[in-house]
């Protein structure tokens, strides 16, 4: 089973060039999870139960605006991470994650992952940069979204 999980993991961009032994160790603590469309996988403010990698499907990360309703800030698709705050001690999820379509994900339970990373610097050195890349990518996207570049304004004509 874990061999299969490893194969699934390496098909994502997150783990595409991951050394086989690292991939295997992650697979050893991974759990395959299938969500139907509309499932809530994260709840804003509530600690994440696990770090997830989307294998297929789509999750909308949303923030609720009082008086306005939910707004999707970003969607995560194949290879994207969700629930990365599971790597932070005592941190709650920064958004609510809802699957938009049936979604398959590989989950790494929070405490089990933290213990594995703490116990194995080689594993930590392989995983943290990848998480950082994923978070930085999301940060870069957020910056451009903040610019609202497509907004129409007044023009001379």
């Amino acid at each position: 089973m874990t061999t299969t999980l490893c194969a699934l993991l390496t098909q994502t961009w997150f783990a595409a060039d991951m050394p086989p032994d690292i991939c295997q160790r992650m697979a050893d603590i991974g759990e395959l999870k299938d969500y139907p469309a509309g499932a809530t996988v994260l709840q804003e403010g509530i600690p994440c139960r696990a770090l997830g990698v989307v294998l297929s499907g789509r999750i909308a990360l949303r923030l609720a605006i009082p008086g306005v309703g939910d707004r999707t800030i970003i969607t995560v698709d194949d290879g994207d991470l969700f629930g990365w705050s599971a790597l932070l001690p005592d941190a709650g999820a920064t958004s609510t994650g809802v699957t938009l379509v049936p979604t398959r994900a590989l989950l790494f339970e929070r405490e089990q992952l933290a213990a594995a990373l703490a116990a194995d610097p080689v594993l930590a050195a392989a995983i943290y940069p990848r998480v950082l890349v994923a978070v930085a990518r999301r940060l870069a996207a957020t910056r451009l979204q903040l610019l609202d570049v497509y907004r129409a304004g007044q023009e001379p004509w």
Partner: protein
Amino acid sequence: MTATPRFLPRAELDRLFAVLTADGRRVLGPTIVDGAIVHDELASTAELPVGWTADTAPGSYRLRETGRERAFDYNVGVTSWKRFTHPPIVPLTRGRREGGKVVVESVEETPPRVAFVGVRACELAALRIQDRAMRAGPLGDADHVARGDAALVVAVECATAAGTCFCTSMGTGPEVTDGADIVLSELDEGFVIRSTSEAGGALVDRLQLRSAEPIESARAVAQVTAVRDAIGDPVPTEGLSAKLRAALDHPRWAEVAQRCLACANCTLVCPTCFCTSVSVASDLDGVEGTTARNWDSCFSAGFGRVAGDANFRPKVKDRYRQWLTHKFSTWWDQFGSTGCVGCGRCIAWCPVGIDVREELMAIAPLDAPEGPIPWPLSPDEGRAPAALATVAPAVHVTATVRATGFETADTATLHLTTSDRALLGARPGQFVMVELPGFAVPPISISRIRPDGLDLTIRSVGPATAALTSLTGGAELSLRGPLGRSWPVEAGYGRDVVIVAGGIGLAPLRPLIDAILADRPKFGAVRLYLGARTPRDRLFVAEMNALAGRADLEIDEIVDRAGPEWLGRVGIVTQLFDHAPWDGSRATAFMCGPERMMQATATTLNRLGVARKDLWLTLERNMACGVGTCGHCQLGPFFVCRDGPVFSQAELGTAFGREGL
């Protein structure tokens, strides 16, 4: 021509004026108005500034009596001769709109035959330089050409040097070498006169003058030589263009901006500056409208402003850099000469006394490095050939709206019919200038080319675009075009194609998509990535959905923000492909959208292997004339309307995405 110099006694200068008048010419020359020497129409030699000169220094101009009887004992007038060859206001079009019917016609004036009397060597150079700019491109500016052709030039060699002169550094004077019809050298007792054209020779022959004595000719030469020595070489120009290219981030730009008022005096008195804007006037009921071309300046705050409140040169620092680097660097790239003739007007008439000579030596001193060229300047270096415009600026075609379809709440597509062969021959990526009498004339990208007409997709964000998007079936509008360089569709032959569109940037890409699909076997894999602000802002939704059903094309889309009802992707457009498995080195990419989005897209595509020469984009700038003569859309060595709007990333060099250029 009169090869032998002749001598015109001072008392007989009137005879020269009489000959010019008899030749059917208005005589324009120097005279004193409001305490300054200006160029104006002269009824007789009595109006010349006899016995006067002007003392000039940074921020200072004062008339002074010389105690001599000379008529041309000053250097240059306040206003340059461009006032007559490139007038401050030139009517462009006259239009009428009634009951949906539109007629727009060019206003064509026949310029009067004139004689410019008192033109200095630096001003002759200025006439040549501005002429080269206004005649540039396949079509040129008809009004400028006609006015220049109607002028006969009587030059006068300088006998004094002003404190602001630096023609010697710019290689334009003080000796008169060419460009005049008649050349005068003023001595106390009269003028050594020679002709340098057939027209000038015929006129001089009519004066029936004696030959100049060798001593008279020698004194004339000695006089101008003394002027050269007096001026010296205040601005060594060797390598200046390259040094300025390397100094785009010099701290002096910010420092000089602290002093510069951005008043535009320097550009208005400059004899070569040619920037203009188009003004619009309408009668009260909006039936009749006219447009005119007015002098403007790259120092104007809104000169680089475009749709969406973007302003490509918002700071005085940016605008001063634009002016100086254009004059002394990118002018060479565009027209093969300096844009400055060293007349010194900009120094004297700067209200705070900014001295361009001093600024140049601070920013690009003798020992400054000549940095790498930030953009390729020739096809060998990677610059694509310029657009070959085929439609004269004066040609306005009336097109009829067949139907109007709203794509979003503020964006509509006008389906136009026309039988104009030039418009029907438009290429993907080209644009048209769209005119409704009484409204500003925006450039609009062509969003579809059909056998019987064109589609224009227009976002309503101002009065003109609001009027255009409100047009319904049967209404007419006026088009000028097609203009600009098109997408190089053939660059994708035998290669994979990646198309990235952001917002309304899909409109100019749509004809490219049409062209690719019409010739689908010639291309490899075709991938189309679409970004929009919200789901409601997506363009051509049904059409894109239909494309999604094709097996020979991949299409994916994403929006910046969305509510819970949207099941598609949310984020930025690069997320659609930043981890794509395809090999970018085999792809030709085309993109259009807001510039910041295109920067991010280019970075991602380059990382995926797309070469800079294979990445094509279309730039937005304030394209006011559409043919490269108004200056609004300048970007480094390019006029975006004429050299673009389609560019490769390679040919833009570091100009792409650079703020304030």
